[in-house]
Each structure stands twice: as C-alpha cells, then as structure tokens.
C-alpha cells in the first residue's frame, strides 16, 4: 500500500512496518462504520451533504475520508489526522477535570473524555484529538440562541447594537471570562514545568500553543509577533501563541457543542441560558446617536405621527451657576420622551435620545422564540414582530 500516515507535525508518525498494521485497523473501522450506519438518520453528524453509497475500495481510499462516524460520540473521527482518541478511564484520573465536570453540573452521560478534548486546542499540537470541530458546532448554537433571544426580545434593535450585544455575550473576551469563571487554567506547551508533567496531569488544563501560519510538505511556519522600530527595521521577532482569549473561548464553545451532541438540543439551549444569557448587558448604554432630534423627526414622519415639538416641562436656576431644565418631546399631546440638562439644548437632546431609545428598545409583552416550538409539534408557532428597520435620515 502506498499510504503515508501523516502526523500532526507533518512527518511520518509511524514506521513502514507499523503502517501496514495501522492501515488494516483503519480499514476495519471504515467497514464497520458502514455496516452499522447504513441509515443516515441515526447519526447526529454528517460531513456536509455527501453520503457514501458504496463500500470504499481500500486501495484508493484516502486517509481523510468523508466516512460517517460510527456512533454519536465519534466526534471528528472523520478528521482524526493521525491523532489518538482519549481514553475515559485514564482521563478520569485527573482531579481537576473531575471537579470541572461536577462544577458545571454536567450529567453522567457527558463523557469525561469529551471535556478533556474540549481543553485541547488545535494549536497545542497534541497527539490527541482537539476541540476544533466541537468549538465550531458550539459556536453556531451559542450565537444562534443569543441572537434569537436578542432579536425576538428587542425587535427594533439596530444592526450595530446587535453586533455589540453579540460581542458582549459571545465575543472572545466574554467567553474567556466565562471559561475563567469555570475555574479552568491555561497551560502552554513549552514551559519548563510542563515538560515534566505527565499526560494525565495535563488533562485538566487548557492547552494551546503557536499559531500555524503556513504549512508546507514537512515544515510549518508559525505566526510571529514582529516589533519594528521607528525606521521600520525589525528589532524583535517572536513566535506568537494563540491568544488566551481565543483559546479559552474555543473551550467554552466546545463544551456547548459537546452538550448538544451528548445531551441534545434542549439541554444545550438550557446550558447557554444558564451560563451565558444569565449575564447582564445594559443595552440602553450601547446606543450613540448622531443628531437625535433630526432622527426623531424622521421617525415621526415615517410612522405618521405629528412632528415632534420640544417643550419645557420645568426649569430652575436660570441665570444661576447651575440651572436644571427638564424638556419633553411631544408629538401632539403625547409625550415621547423627556430629558434633563444643564442647558436647554442639552435637555432637548437628551429628550430626543430617550424618545428614540424607547422606540428602539421596544419589547413585546409576550416574547415568542422560534426555538420554543422545536421538537414539540403541539406548540403553535406565533411569528415575532419584525420591524421595518432603522430610521433613514
């Protein structure tokens, strides 16, 4: 067989003699996968939309096959790339990992080896399977549920604010904070103490390393931190590791992905609600308006309301050092918003801003999420309010 088994470092990871044995066992794995998994619906994962309809010929079979995994927990086995699977009994020996499992209240059906796998980033260059696939899956569900909550609860939010809320809940800094609050500590692969640690000892730590920029036949080029002086000459060149925030957020996403695979969709949604959505963002403070009075005027015109007029509600201290003006913006006799200020102009601006915020932060009294109807055919889908969009000035 002219099959070359390529390890993570780009070099052959087993000798010629071993490769024959390895090939046979991989062949067996593929054949078994097809015997068990003839009906695609039993499998939670499928690689793209391509299903292999006939038994592959081992002579032409490439290592990175698109074969379906044999079982649900066979995550990413289709892209193992010469990496080893973690063993549950060995991984359970790490106390930090066991504590983490209990801390997150993960059920018995969530294997420890998935949690251990979530802690291994691809940049760690480990012999074991990494969290890239799990992180990909988890990030989709995480961003979906957060976005769904946001768009259904506040249907009139402008796009820029939606982007900022998503960053605040699911951005790298936020997820890194979540991971840290779960008690996970990081370990980069090349410290002096880490060289002496056994495989079991390392299991409880988040592992990440240098970011590969370019991969040629047998070489890898790593991303570098380049420091230039004022002339533009390079004064320091250091291979930079993956950012801690990115590595930790990959871990959090992997846990979410793992929960979806092992526990199901509802458990995944609940986990996201409890750990991510329970955090607090003051959405009102994320707005920054330019010419709010003009925007409010256009909004009233669009909504066929009477044009906004600002009127003084009360004032005190005019001609003194510290006046206070309360101005209200009225559409006819309806008060749209009021604001206070040290000058009339400031109060008027604040009033317009408050009026606009009360428009954009509208929330229906009964919020209906599309995902509530998942898996329950008796629940009737009630469409949420969809706004016509931001005011165009």
């Amino acid at each position, binding site marked *: 067989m002219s099959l070359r088994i390529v390890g993570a470092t780009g070099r052959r990871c087993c000798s010629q003699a071993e490769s024959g044995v390895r090939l046979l066992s991989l062949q067996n794995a593929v054949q078994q996968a097809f015997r068990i998994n003839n009906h695609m619906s039993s499998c939670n994962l499928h690689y793209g939309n391509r299903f292999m309809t006939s038994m592959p010929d081992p002579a032409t079979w490439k290592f990175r096959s698109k074969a379906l995994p044999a079982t649900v927990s066979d995550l990413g086995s289709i892209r193992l790339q010469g990496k080893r699977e973690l063993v549950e009994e060995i991984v359970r020996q790490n106390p930090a990992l066991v504590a983490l499992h209990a801390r997150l209240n993960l059920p018995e059906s969530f294997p420890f080896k998935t949690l251990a796998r979530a802690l291994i980033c691809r940049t760690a260059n480990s012999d074991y399977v990494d969290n890239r696939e799990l992180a990909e899956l988890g990030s989709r569900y995480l961003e979906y549920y957060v976005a769904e909550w946001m768009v259904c609860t506040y249907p009139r939010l402008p796009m820029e604010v939606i982007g900022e809320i998503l960053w605040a809940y699911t951005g790298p800094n936020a997820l890194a904070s979540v991971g*840290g609050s779960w*008690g996970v500590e990081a370990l980069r692969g090349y410290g002096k103490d880490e060289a002496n640690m056994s495989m079991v000892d390392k299991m409880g730590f988040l592992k990440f390393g240098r970011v590969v920029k370019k991969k040629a036949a047998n070489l890898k080029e790593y991303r570098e931190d380049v420091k230039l002086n004022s002339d533009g000459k390079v004064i320091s060149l250091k291979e930079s590791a993956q950012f801690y925030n990115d590595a930790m957020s990959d871990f959090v996403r992997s846990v979410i992905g793992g929960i979806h695979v092992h526990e199901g969709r509802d458990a995944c949604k609940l986990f996201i609600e409890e750990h991510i959505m329970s955090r607090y*963002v003051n959405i009102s403070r994320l707005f920054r308006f330019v010419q709010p009075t003009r925007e409010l005027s256009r909004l009233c015109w669009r909504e066929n309301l009477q044009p906004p007029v600002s009127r003084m509600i009360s004032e005190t201290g005019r001609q003194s050092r510290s006046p206070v003006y309360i101005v209200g913006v009225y559409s006819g006799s309806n008060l749209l918003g009021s604001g206070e200020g040290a000058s009339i102009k400031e109060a008027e601006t604040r009033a317009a801003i408050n009026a606009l915020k009360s428009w954009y932060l509208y929330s229906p009294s009964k919020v209906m999420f599309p995902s509530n109807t998942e898996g329950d055919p008796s629940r009737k889908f009630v469409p949420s309010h969809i706004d016509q969009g931001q005011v165009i000035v």
Partner: protein
Amino acid sequence: MPINAVRRGIAEARNGVGAFVLPCKRLTFRYCNWGASSVGMREYLHEHLKAFSDKNKCIEMVVTKKRGQPVIIGDYMNGRQKVICVGNMRPHEIDEKAKLLSDASGNKLKKVTQPVQSINESPRGIWSPFHELEQFRHRI
C-alpha cells in the same frame, strides 16, 4: 444618520442568576510528616478528607507534604487565594476551616453596611424635585 454603537465591555457575570458555579475551585491541604502541629491534620487527611471531598465534588482537592505548619489553601475564581494555618488543631476544627474556605467567594473581606446589594436600578425610581406637580414644587 447611522446609529453608532459603543462598546461598553463584556456582559457582567451574575453567578447564581442562571447556574451557580462554586467560586472555590481548589483546596490544597499541606501537611508535615514530622511535626506535632500536623497531628490533627494528618488524622483529618486519613479519616475525614474523603467524606469532605465526596460532599464537595466540584472542588479539586490537593494534598502536599511540606515541613512546617499545616495549612489549607483555597484557590478562587477571581484569582485570589485564602490561606489558613491549621497548626495544633483537631480534625473537627480543621473541618470547620475547610468548610469556611469552601464557602468563601475569594473576595477581600468587606464590611457590609446595607442589607441589599444590587446592580439593578431602583424599581420605583429616584425622587426628582423637578417632576413634582406644579403646586407641590419647592420654592426658594
């Protein structure tokens, strides 16, 4: 005019509103094999630590040996450490100290003056002299 959005930081954690994650992540029990002050600690490690660990599955328990006084060190989510020397204590007292550390949040001890601490604004609003009715407004 497009609305600009301002980045005001990440979402604030509210431990317990959704899921509760115990802030104490690790307890290190440091004992000395020779000293008499560690007698109680050694007995605690033999007899009582297993039960304590089973009750607190989410805390990683580490036992280390070092010459000197026996000590329990708690590591917390906020990155701080709390250290309690348990020299010459009996096992039941050591258990109390371990429980103290496991219940702690890791924050610096602070005198609490108000019964309620919250990040939410008051539900009834703060009184403003300017929003009173005309006839009730204060006149200088």
